[in-house]
């Protein structure tokens, strides 16, 4: 085989590049990874001309924990404990995406009650995620009180999660085939009582931050990304809906019974931080609407786990009578179940955008490969485009407006 030598004309390229007369007047500043407003451990390398951002380079990987690789070592059902730790603010949504993907491979569907529980909890999770965003975004722009109000509300919702799932943060409550257990006694009633108060809070939030003139001046026309650019950069979630693109997977490819719910997708076409802000604020209201519908449906009891033999442990009585049932129980509990050979991509709408699971199964009891299309990662890629030419103070506003979670970016 002949090797072909590739000649790179380095000298000519440097000669062509025009010398930048301002190059030595610029300042390179490192924003992060330890910085109050990079929402975790994002590092931004900013080239500043005075206070104007000339260039921005996101530097990620500080939170990389090899989660996708770890998933290959876990059994199908155990992977759920990892998915919820990626985008830790939207943990239920992550679990749901994975469960739905594997369910598609197994060709089963969760029972109706399980589907409604999933919708209720993921929407509540979306609200908690948006509350964290609202608080920190406000704080980035200097309105520190918003943060405390948001977390007071979120705390109550986390209490509901604890009530239903036993955990406040990493619930791992959705499993393949349905939910781990049914909702406790008066959960439905308590959430129903809570939601009107939350809607009142949203009105208050509107008064405190949304209606504030300074806040509007800080966000309007800042961090623009045009409709075409937003599509080209494959943005998703509220970030693309703030650029006037009506793209919501709950509507375009409904899953878990979202097509039976009545809700609107808020879209604003300002393409700026302000539009993205409004999208998320409206989304919280829409989520409350969905929750209310789900709560009505959850009044009727029903199974919460599919009775597919691979997923449900056999009955105790049958085990005592039939040896094959006993063996089945033993294998299921010790080895886990297998998933047919195949591959699947399943996207859902998380609080941040399209979170998609690409899963390959080689027919064993562990996934061969799990690849996550993380919305934060892809939305973050468009950050330089949004901040270049803006002021330093706008950078933090823009980071807040794309609502990244570094656990989701690095995985």
């Amino acid at each position, binding site marked *: 085989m002949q090797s072909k030598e590739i000649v790179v004309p380095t000298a000519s390229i440097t000669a062509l590049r025009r010398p930048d007369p301002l190059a030595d007047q610029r*300042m390179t*500043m490192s924003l992060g990874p330890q*910085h*109050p*407003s990079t929402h975790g451990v994002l590092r931004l390398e900013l080239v500043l001309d005075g*206070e104007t951002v000339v260039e921005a380079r996101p530097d990620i990987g500080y939170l990389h924990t090899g989660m996708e690789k770890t998933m290959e070592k876990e059994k199908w059902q155990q992977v759920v404990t990892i998915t919820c730790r990626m985008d830790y603010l939207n943990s239920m949504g992550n679990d749901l995406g994975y469960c739905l993907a594997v369910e598609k491979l197994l060709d089963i569907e969760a029972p109706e009650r399980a589907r409604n529980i999933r919708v209720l909890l993921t929407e509540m999770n979306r609200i908690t995620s948006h509350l964290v965003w609202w608080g920190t975004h*406000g*704080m*980035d*722009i*200097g*309105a*520190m*009180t918003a943060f*405390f*109000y948001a977390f*007071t509300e979120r705390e109550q919702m986390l209490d509901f999660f604890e009530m239903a799932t036993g955990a406040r943060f990493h619930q791992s409550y959705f499993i393949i085939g349905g939910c781990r257990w049914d909702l406790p006694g008066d959960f439905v009633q308590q959430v129903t009582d809570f939601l009107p108060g939350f809607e009142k809070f949203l009105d208050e939030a509107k008064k*405190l*931050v949304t209606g*504030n003139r*300074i*806040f509007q*001046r*800080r966000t309007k026309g800042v961090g623009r990304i045009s409709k075409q650019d937003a599509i080209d950069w494959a943005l998703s979630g509220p970030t693309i809906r703030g650029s006037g693109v009506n793209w919501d997977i709950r509507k375009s490819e409904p899953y878990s019974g979202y097509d039976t719910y009545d809700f609107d997708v808020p879209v604003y076409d300002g393409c700026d931080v302000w539009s993205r802000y409004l999208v998320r604020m409206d989304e919280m209201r829409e989520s409350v609407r969905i929750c209310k519908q789900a709560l009505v449906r959850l009044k009727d009891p029903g199974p919460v786990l599919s009775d597919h033999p691979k997923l449900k442990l056999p009955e105790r009585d049958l085990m005592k009578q039939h040896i094959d049932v006993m063996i089945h129980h033993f294998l299921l509990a010790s080895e886990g179940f297998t998933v047919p050979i195949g591959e699947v991509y399943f996207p859902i709408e998380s609080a941040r955008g399209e979170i998609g699971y690409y899963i390959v199964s080689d027919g064993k009891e562990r996934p061969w490969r799990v690849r996550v299309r993380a919305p934060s990662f892809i939305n973050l890629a468009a950050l330089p485009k949004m901040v270049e030419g803006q*002021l*330093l*103070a*706008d*950078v*933090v506003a823009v980071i807040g407006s794309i609502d990244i979670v570094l656990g989701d970016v690095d995985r």
Partner: protein
Amino acid sequence: MSIDVGFLLEALIKIVVVFHIVLIILAYTVYAERRVLAVIQNRLGPNRVGPQGLLQPFADLLKFIFKEELVPLAANKWLYLLAPLVALVPAFMTMIVYPFGGTVNLPWVGEIDLVVTHFNVGLLYVFAMTSLGVYGIVIAGWASNSKYSLLGGLRSSAQMVSYELALSLSVIGALLQAGSLDLVEIVRAQGGFFGLGWHIFWFQPLGFFIFLISAIAETNRIPFDLPEAETELVAGFHTEYSAMKFALFFLGEYANMLTASVLATVLFLGGWQGPFVDQFPLLGPVYFLGKVFFFIFLYIWLRGTLPRFRYDQLMNFGWKFLLPAALFNIVLSAIVALFAL
């Protein structure tokens, strides 16, 4: 020329007393800020040290004193150590002209003025001293040799210089009406109408609001706290400062807040003037401190409510709105002073 020992003694005692009163007010301003913010933000605030956390300022002070003294290697050491002093000392020097009250008759002592000293350029003296404070910030930003500090120092120098213009111009109306630069005389001029002849009611409401906004900007508080915008510049000019050096900046900021509140009270809210103050002169300090604390509360309230301006918006606001408004107010006051008074 003989030295009047009595006069000297009186001045010294007054200085010591006022210094301690102001220090205690400052310490409890910090405490009040934390508690009031906590109430605004639906949480408790410091309530562990002493009853209701009242000893918190002293605990904080001890903590600051016992922290390790750090000087960054790359810093310009002398300027770095000098900056907190430059920020603090002028801020404290203004307190000698605070007019706490009128002339009172105390037992054993006799008649004394409740002010350390009053001289005929009192207001100019205060402005001169508060303007010096900007040097502390600029030097701190430069000497720290950190990019965050540098940007913070740059921002604050631009901001303080711009807003000082509007600040100084906004008080001219009040001075025209009072006819003096001496803070005590300015207060005395507002004694009419049963002690309610305050400038804010009589022809200077516009001047008052311009003064208030500029004063908040001058003291680097929300919504104008760009020099230390923590979400952008970590802590701005004092990013590299720790221990007592940081505490000095902190104290300087609060002393400036107090000075701005005192000036607003003296120039526009009639200082110690109020109903029945002529009959009971000891009411004077009560009125005076009440008004000052109202302004301090206002500062805290704003901090709990408002977001932060952006640099260019701040500059636009200062030069394109506040400055013309202040000039307009001067013309207005001149007409008032010519025909109405």
